[in-house]
C-alpha cells in the first residue's frame, strides 16, 4: 500500500468514525469519547475474529416457513370469516322474512282498500299501485337477494364476496324505508 493510499484510507476511516460518533450522543465528556474510541478498536478486532457460518439454504427454509404460517393464518381467518358470514346471513334471512311478511300485509291491505268503492275523482289506484309499490319494492328485494346470494357463496368459500355487509345493510334500510312509506301511504 502506498503512503498516499494509506493516508486516504485513514481519512476515510476517520470520517466514518466521526459519522458514527455523531449517531451516538455520548455526551461531551473526554473520557466517554476515549472509551468510544477504545471500543471502536476492540470492535475492529472482534470483526476480524468472527467467521460467519450461515447455512446456504437458510433463507429458503425461512421463506417456506413464512409461507406455511401465512397459509395457516389465512385458513384460520377464512374459517372465522365463514362462521361470521353464516351468522350474518342467517340474521339477514330472518330480517328478509320479516320484510316479506310486511310487504304481504301491505299488499293485502292495499287490495282490500282497492276493492272499496272508487272515490269521486276517479284516481287510478291500480295503476299507481303497480307503478310505485311493486316496482320499487321488488327491485329492492332483488338487491337484497343478490347481496345474500353473494355473501352465502363467499361464506361457503366458493367465491370472493362481490357484496359487503355494508351493501346489505344499505339495501335493507332502503327496503325498510320503502315499506314504511308504503304503509304510510296506504294507511
Amino acid at each position: 500500500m502506498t503512503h498516499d493510499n494509506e493516508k486516504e484510507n485513514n481519512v476515510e476511516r476517520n470520517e466514518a468514525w466521526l459519522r458514527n460518533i455523531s449517531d451516538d450522543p455520548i455526551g461531551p465528556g473526554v473520557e466517554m469519547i476515549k472509551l468510544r474510541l477504545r471500543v471502536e478498536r476492540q470492535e475492529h478486532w472482534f470483526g476480524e475474529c468472527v467467521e460467519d457460518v450461515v447455512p446456504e439454504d437458510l433463507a429458503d427454509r425461512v421463506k417456506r416457513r413464512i409461507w406455511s404460517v401465512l397459509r395457516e393464518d389465512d385458513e384460520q381467518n377464512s374459517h372465522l370469516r365463514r362462521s361470521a358470514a353464516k351468522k350474518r346471513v342467517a340474521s339477514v334471512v330472518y330480517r328478509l322474512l320479516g320484510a316479506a311478511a310486511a310487504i304481504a300485509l301491505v299488499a293485502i291491505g292495499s287490495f282490500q282498500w282497492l276493492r272499496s268503492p272508487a272515490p269521486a275523482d276517479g284516481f287510478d289506484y291500480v295503476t299507481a299501485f303497480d307503478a310505485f309499490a311493486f316496482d320499487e319494492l321488488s327491485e329492492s328485494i332483488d338487491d337484497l337477494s343478490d347481496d345474500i346470494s353473494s355473501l352465502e357463496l363467499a361464506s361457503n368459500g366458493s367465491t370472493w364476496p362481490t357484496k359487503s355487509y355494508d351493501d346489505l345493510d344499505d339495501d335493507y334500510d332502503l327496503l325498510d324505508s320503502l315499506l314504511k312509506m308504503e304503509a304510510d301511504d296506504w294507511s
Partner: protein
Amino acid sequence: MKIADDLENIVKRAKTLDQEALDALVDLYSSRLYGFLYRMTGNVDDAEELVQEVFVRVVRTIADYSHRGRFESWLFRIAGNLGRDHARKRSRTPTILPLTTTDAGSSHDEERDRPLPNQSASSPDKDLRVREDVDILQRGMASLSENEREVILLRHYADLSFSDIAKIMETPVGTALARAHRGLTKLREWMETQT
C-alpha cells in the same frame, strides 16, 4: 440513502404481506440474524429455529410496525427478546456451552462434531481451523454476561449505534458503551489465553 429508501419501500410493501417484499427482508437479514442468534445461543439448530421464529413474528406484527428510526432496531429487538427467552428456558435445563473442553457434555460434543454449515466447498484443514476458531470464540462469548454479549452482538450484526442499542436495552448510552468495552476486553483476554 438509496438503500434506506429501498428498505423503506420494502417494509411498506411487507406491511401488506407482499410476498416479494417479505422474501426480500429474509434475503437481507436472515444471515445476520442467524449469526446474532448463533452467537447468543451457541447452537446451530436453535439459531435457525429462532431465525424462523423472528420472521414469523415479523410477519404477524409488521402491519402494526411504524417505520420510525431504523428497521434493524425493531427486528433485532425481536431477535434479542427471543434469544433471551430461549436462554432462560435453557438455563432451567442447562445445555449452555462449557467454558473448557474437559467440561464438554455430550450435546456439546455433538455440536462440535457436526459439520459446520456452508463449508462443503472448503478444504478439511480450513474446516478444522474454522471450527476451532468458532468454538473458541463461541466459548468466549458464553463466558460473557448476557448484557455484555448482547451489546457486542447488536453492534456487530445489527450495525446499530450505541444510542439505538441503549434504547433497546433501556439503559443510558454510557452503560451500553461500558458493557461493550468490558465484554470485548474479556473476550480478547479469553482469546489470548486460548491461542
